[in-house]
C-alpha cells in the first residue's frame, strides 16, 4: 500500500489541464500552488503494481512536463 508525493510540473500553459487530468485519476490527490506553475501530487495505492501502473500513466499525460518524487513509503 504505497504512498508517494511528487512535485508535478505542467507543460507551458497547461497547469489547469494537468490539475484536471490528475484529479480525475483514482488514487490521486492534487494540491496546486496558487502562485507557481507547480502542484503537489499525492498517490495512495493499494499495492505496488497499481502504483507502478498509475505512475506510468501519469508520466504519459500530455499536460505533464516532469514529475519529481519528494517522499515515498511502501512498508504499510
Amino acid at each position, binding site marked *: 500500500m504505497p504512498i508517494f508525493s511528487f*512535485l508535478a510540473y505542467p507543460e507551458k500553459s497547461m497547469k489547469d489541464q494537468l490539475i484536471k487530468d490528475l484529479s480525475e485519476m483514482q488514487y490521486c490527490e492534487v494540491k496546486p*500552488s496558487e502562485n507557481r506553475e507547480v502542484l503537489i*501530487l499525492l498517490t495512495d495505492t493499494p499495492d505496488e503494481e497499481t502504483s507502478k501502473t498509475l505512475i506510468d500513466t501519469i508520466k504519459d499525460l500530455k499536460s505533464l512536463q516532469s514529475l519529481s518524487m519528494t517522499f*515515498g513509503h511502501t512498508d504499510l
Partner: protein
Amino acid sequence: MTITRRDFIRAMALKSAAVAAATMFPGISFASWKPTDLPADSILWSKTPCRFCGTGCGLLVGVSGERAVAVKGDPNCSVNKGLCCVKGYHSIQILYGKDRFTTAYVRKDGKMVATPIEEALDIVAAQMKSAIEKTGKDSVAIYGSGQWSIPDGYAASKFFKGCIGTNNVEANARLCMASAVTGCLTTFGLDEPMGCYEDIDNADVFITWGNNMAEMHPVLFSRMLANRKSKTHVQIIDLTTRSTRSSLAADKSILFNPQSDLAIANAICYEIINNNWVNQAFVTDHVSFHTGKTNIGYGTEDHFAFSDKAETVDFEAYKTFLKDYTPELAEKISGVSAEDIKYLAALYGDPEKKVTSFWTMGMNQHTRGTWINNLVYNIHLLTGKISSPGNSPFSLTGQPSACGTVREVGTLTHKLPHGVVMNEDHRKMAAKIWGVPESNIDPKPTYHTVEMFRALDRGDINFMWIQVTNPMVTMPNLTRYRDGAKKDGRFIVVSEIYPTPTSDVADVILPSALWVEREGFFGNSERRTQHNAQLVPKPGEAMCNTWQLIQVARRLGFEKQFPWSQDSYIEDIWNEYTKFHDSPKHRMASYKELTERSGVQWPFVDGKETRWRYNGKYDPACQGDTWDFYGKPDHRAWVWLRPYEPPAESPDRDYPFWLNTGRVLEHWHTGSMTRRIPILHKAMPESYVEINPEDAKNMGVVNGSKVKIISRRGSIVMKASINGRGNPPMGMVFVPFFDESYLINEVTLDAFCPISKQPDYKKCAVKLEKV
C-alpha cells in the same frame, strides 16, 4: 481526534512535497491545503542531529510507543532551519532494516555462529591480549570513522593510546578530511574552519572547487540558492572536472583538467597581484610567506615516509614564484581559458564583493590535497577575505562527526584530544586526564590508514577492530587490502548494524546500537557540537560502540580508567573530554547546554558561541579587535608557495581515460544504510559508469550497455549512463561507489597526499571495453 498511521504518513508525504517546493520556489503557497494537525499526545518529538552528512542538520524524530515513526526538520536548528534533504526525511528507516545485526557472531570452523554478546566480548578481549603478548602492542589496531559519536572516538583513543600504549588509532576521515586538516594546520596552525554557515547568507559570490553541493550538501546548496534568489547580484561559480547538478544551477560552470586546480589557484593569485587587488594592509599585518619541499611523491610504496620543511620567504619571492602561473600558462595546464581565470580573479579581487569558497572531496582526495587547500587559502589571504561574514574559505565535511570525533577528539595516529603525540606537554595533559603514566603514550605515530591496512596485509598488525565503517568497500586498491584482511593469522572484529563486505571478513561481529538508539554527540562542519538522547530501544543485544570499548577495556584490566556506570557514562565521558579543550581557543558547551540546545558552536566562552575565528570582533581568543591568527607562533596566517605537480597516474596510450569516483544524492557513502531504505534504493538502485556521449558514440555504447572498466589494478563491468545525472568531459568516466555489488575501488589507486596521507579517489587511468 484520532489519526491512523496511514493518515500520518500521507500528511508527512504532503509536507515533504511542500518543503521541497518551498526550497525551490521561496514564497510558494498552496492555498487549498493546510497541513493536518496531528494530536499532540500521539507522537513524542525529540531533537537530534541527522545521522548522515557533516552538514549537521537538526532533525525532530517522532516516536510513538517504542518506535521512531516520523522525521521533520528542526526549526530551532540554525543549520537547516526546518529543512531536510531526501536522506534526512527517510533517516529513521535505517533503524528498521530486516537484516539488522541483533546478536553477536563468532567465526567457528569457518562459519559465523550466533553468540551471546558477553561471550563475544570475552573472545575479543582474549584475542587482543594474546596479540599484544605475542607480537607487541603495535600489532593491534582500531579503525573507526567520522560516524563515530564523540564518546566512541574518545573511548577508543583513551583505550588504545592511553591504556594499551599504541598509536594504532585511525578513522575513515583520513579518506575524506585529512587534507582539510593539514591544510588548516599548515596555513593557520589550528584545525577546522574559521567561518560558519552564516557566510552562506552573507556572501555575494560562491566559488565551488570540485564540489557537487547539490547532491552532497543539498541543504547548504538550498541556502545558497535562497541567498541568490533574494539578492539579484549573487553569483554561484562552479569550478569542476565534470558537469553535475550543481553545474546546472550555477551561474557559470568552468571545467578544468584533473589536478590542474593547483595551477588555477596560483594563476588567480598572480592576477590579483598583477591588478593591485591585494589587500596590502591585511597582508602586511597578518600574513607571512613560506616554501616547502617539492617533488614530494605519491606514497604508492609500502613504508613511504615524508616530512615537509618550511622556509620563510618574502612577498617578492612569492611574486617571482607566481610568474610561472600567468593565466596564459595556467590555461595550458588546466584547459581553462585565460579569460575565465581572469574572471575568477576579478571576482575574488573585487573589494566590494564578499566571497565564499566551498570544497569537499575534489580538493581533499587529491595527491596534493594539502597544497590545494593552502592555495585556496592564499587567495582569501591576499584579498583579506577571511574570517568575516560572507568571506570564507570553507571545507565541507562528508560525515556527521568527522570534525567532532576525528578532528577534535583526534582519532588519528598522530593526534591526541588536545594536540599531538609528538609533543611532550600534550602527552602529559592526556596522561593526567586519563589517569595513566605518561610513559604509556608513545611519542611516535605509527600507521596512517592506507599504511595501516598495508601493515595488516604484511602481518605487522594481526588484530584489527573496525567500528562504524566499511573499509572493504572504501579502501583504494581494494583487492590487496581485502585479501590481506582474510589472510591466516589476522583477527578482525567488526562492530556493525548490517551485513557488509567488511563484516564478511570478520572473525567477530558485534551488533551496534545505531544513532538514536543510544546517547551521543556529533560535531559538524562549522564547529557545532550536537547532542542526541536515546529515543528508542536498542534491538536485541545491540550495544553502543562506546560501551563495547569500555567492556573490552575493563576485561583487559583498565577498570580504573573506565569506571563509569551505564546510566551516566556518556555524560561522564563528555565532562572528562572537555577538560582537553578548556581554553578560549576551543572551550566547549556543557553537557546540560548541549542537551537543551540544537547544537552549540565552539569556542563557547562566557555563554557565547564564536561564529568567526581569528577575528577579534567575534573571537574571544584573539589579542585585540582585529585579525589574530593565533594558531601560528608569529600570529600570522601562512601563504604557501606550492607548485603544480602532476597526479600519480594520468591517462596514456594503454589506459586513455580518467576514472573519477564519488557519491550520489540518495545514498550515504557505501550505501549500507540508505540501500535498506526502500524508496532511496528504488530511486537509485544500482551504480553505473557515466560516459561522455561522444566517447560512448565512438565505442558504440548506449545507455544501459555493459562496459568493462580496466585499470592496472583491477576491472569491473557495469552499465553505462549517458547524459544522465552527471556528464564527464571526453576522456573521463565517473562511477559512484555506493553499491557493494560494483566495487569500483578494486580499480582505483592507493596514491595519497604525502602530507595528509589522504588517498586520491578522483584520478587514475583506465581503459574501457564494450562488453
